[in-house]
């Protein structure tokens, strides 16, 4: 079997497994899984920039927040339906990531991390500043009646689960496809040896900018989906911890792998859940992973057993 069909099969199997999960898992865990899938979209977006392109951003909460408030405010204040709301979220994230990418890509390395962090902080403060509309830390809730798409009530647990799964599947297949295109391969080349990639005739700046925009927009999709499916927007989602989470998810799951972000998100979620929010336990496990599987769970699996993993 060729690598490409194996990859499609793997991704399809994953989606099927998640469908089955809804029917076999207890309600509590199925609910968690819906949330995990939404955050896994965020992690996949982050992974495109960090894992594949090699650019470490500390400001992705800005893009997540842009999607969340783009949809949230359009629905809450603008009174639009969910469909246009999603579009508003995506466009907001796209524009914000375009501007941030354009400016931040003048720097690299540590400077890039700091600049993205600063932008995200500015975004967070903006949310607080316009508290009259955003209601700041407290946030706002989308009325249940508005959270419907094509007549389907997205506040219903089952509908929510499958909406999250559909979005997750779309993004998973999109990334699986993207990283195998010449464009995606070039991103990996930039990660591995930027100067060599440039001297093969690739426009590095353009590739990086597109990567930031795609990564930011996917992160924004996750933010918008969260707001729509779980019905609330809060400033905390645009704050520093939410820039760090996707980095942890991706490091844990395996940077530069298509399913690593999901695995990392799942793992981290239950790690915190099982340790009863005891960050000590979570910290110890994270350190152990960093020591024994520095390339993450999927990275380690790929190294040992399945070199074809995308």
């Amino acid at each position, binding site marked *: 079997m060729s690598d490409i069909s194996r990859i499609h099969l793997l991704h399809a199997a994953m989606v099927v497994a998640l469908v089955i999960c809804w029917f076999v898992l207890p309600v509590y865990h199925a609910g968690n899984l819906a949330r995990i899938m939404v955050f896994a979209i965020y992690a996949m977006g982050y992974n495109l920039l960090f894992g594949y392109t090699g650019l470490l951003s500390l400001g992705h909460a800005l893009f997540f927040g842009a999607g969340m408030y783009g949809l949230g405010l359009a629905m809450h204040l603008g009174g639009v339906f969910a469909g246009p709301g999603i579009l508003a979220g995506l466009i907001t994230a796209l524009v914000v990531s375009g501007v941030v990418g354009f400016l931040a890509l003048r720097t690299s390395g540590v400077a890039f991390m700091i600049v993205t962090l600063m932008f995200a902080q500015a975004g967070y403060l903006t949310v607080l500043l316009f508290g009259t509309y955003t209601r700041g830390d407290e946030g706002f809730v989308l009325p249940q009646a508005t959270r419907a798409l094509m007549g389907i009530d997205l506040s219903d647990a089952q509908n929510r689960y499958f909406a999250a799964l559909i979005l997750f599947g779309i993004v998973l297949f999109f990334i699986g496809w993207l990283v195998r*295109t010449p464009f995606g*391969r*070039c991103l990996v080349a930039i990660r591995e*040896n930027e100067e*060599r990639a*440039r*001297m093969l*005739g*690739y426009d590095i700046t353009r590739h990086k900018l597109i990567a930031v925009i795609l990564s930011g927009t996917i992160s924004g999709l996750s933010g918008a989906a969260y707001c729509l499916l779980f019905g609330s927007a809060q400033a905390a989602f645009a704050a520093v911890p939410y820039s760090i989470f996707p980095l942890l998810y991706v490091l844990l799951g395996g940077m530069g792998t298509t399913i690593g972000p999901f695995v990392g998100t799942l793992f981290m979620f239950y790690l915190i859940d099982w340790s009863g929010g005891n960050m000590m336990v979570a910290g110890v496990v994270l350190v152990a992973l960093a020591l024994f599987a520095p390339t993450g769970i999927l990275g380690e699996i790929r190294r040992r057993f399945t070199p074809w993993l995308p």
Partner: protein
Amino acid sequence: MAAVNILETKGLTKTYGGLNANYNIDFTLPRGEIHALIGPNGAGKSTFVGMLSGRIPATRGKVWFDGAEVTRLPAHKRISLGIAYTFQITSVFGKLPVRENVALAVRRILGRDREAVRAKVDGVMERVGLTEQADQLAGDLSYGHQRVLEIAMGLAQNPELFILDEPTQGLALPEVEAFMQLVKDLRGETTILLIEHNMNVVMEVSDSLTVLNNGEVLARGTPEEIRANADVQAAYLGGA
């Protein structure tokens, strides 16, 4: 119409903190020629080809490629015009397979056509003798094979001008001989600008050569003329 000279420079100068690494270099390279660039360490050879490929911005002066001025073009644009460049210090994608290294060079030109890319990659690897190593990681190759891979990545682009910065540095004798054969085979396919320390290679493969010393052109001529040039002997060949 294609220009007679594939490459030309006028007054090309690079200054590093008041020191001229290159000073007022006027240079022409006729299409199809195999031209060697020689000179002692620190003469400014790498700086010169860096300014040709766009890797190093020129302090002053102009560069024309195929009749068009490229002085202000960024490196990737010059390369897409048909200049291939290999680094003096081996620079490959160490964590990617050999095949993918070459494919990256090919894909910029052939794009999404997987079959065409595969065929071209196979052809290039066959030509330089890397077929057996195709699935190894480039970083696991021997030093000699990594140098060969660099050359393969250049060849894969079907360049009109192929710039090689000391490709035989650190190679064993049989590898040097294979390299000389490859360059001879490329005659007629592309123009080659070769920085080379090994005088046997220079004398055997090049049509003409330029000697750089202290950032300036000291002499230019056929291998025989350069061999007989007293200045060159004093500066570089050590009176041999």
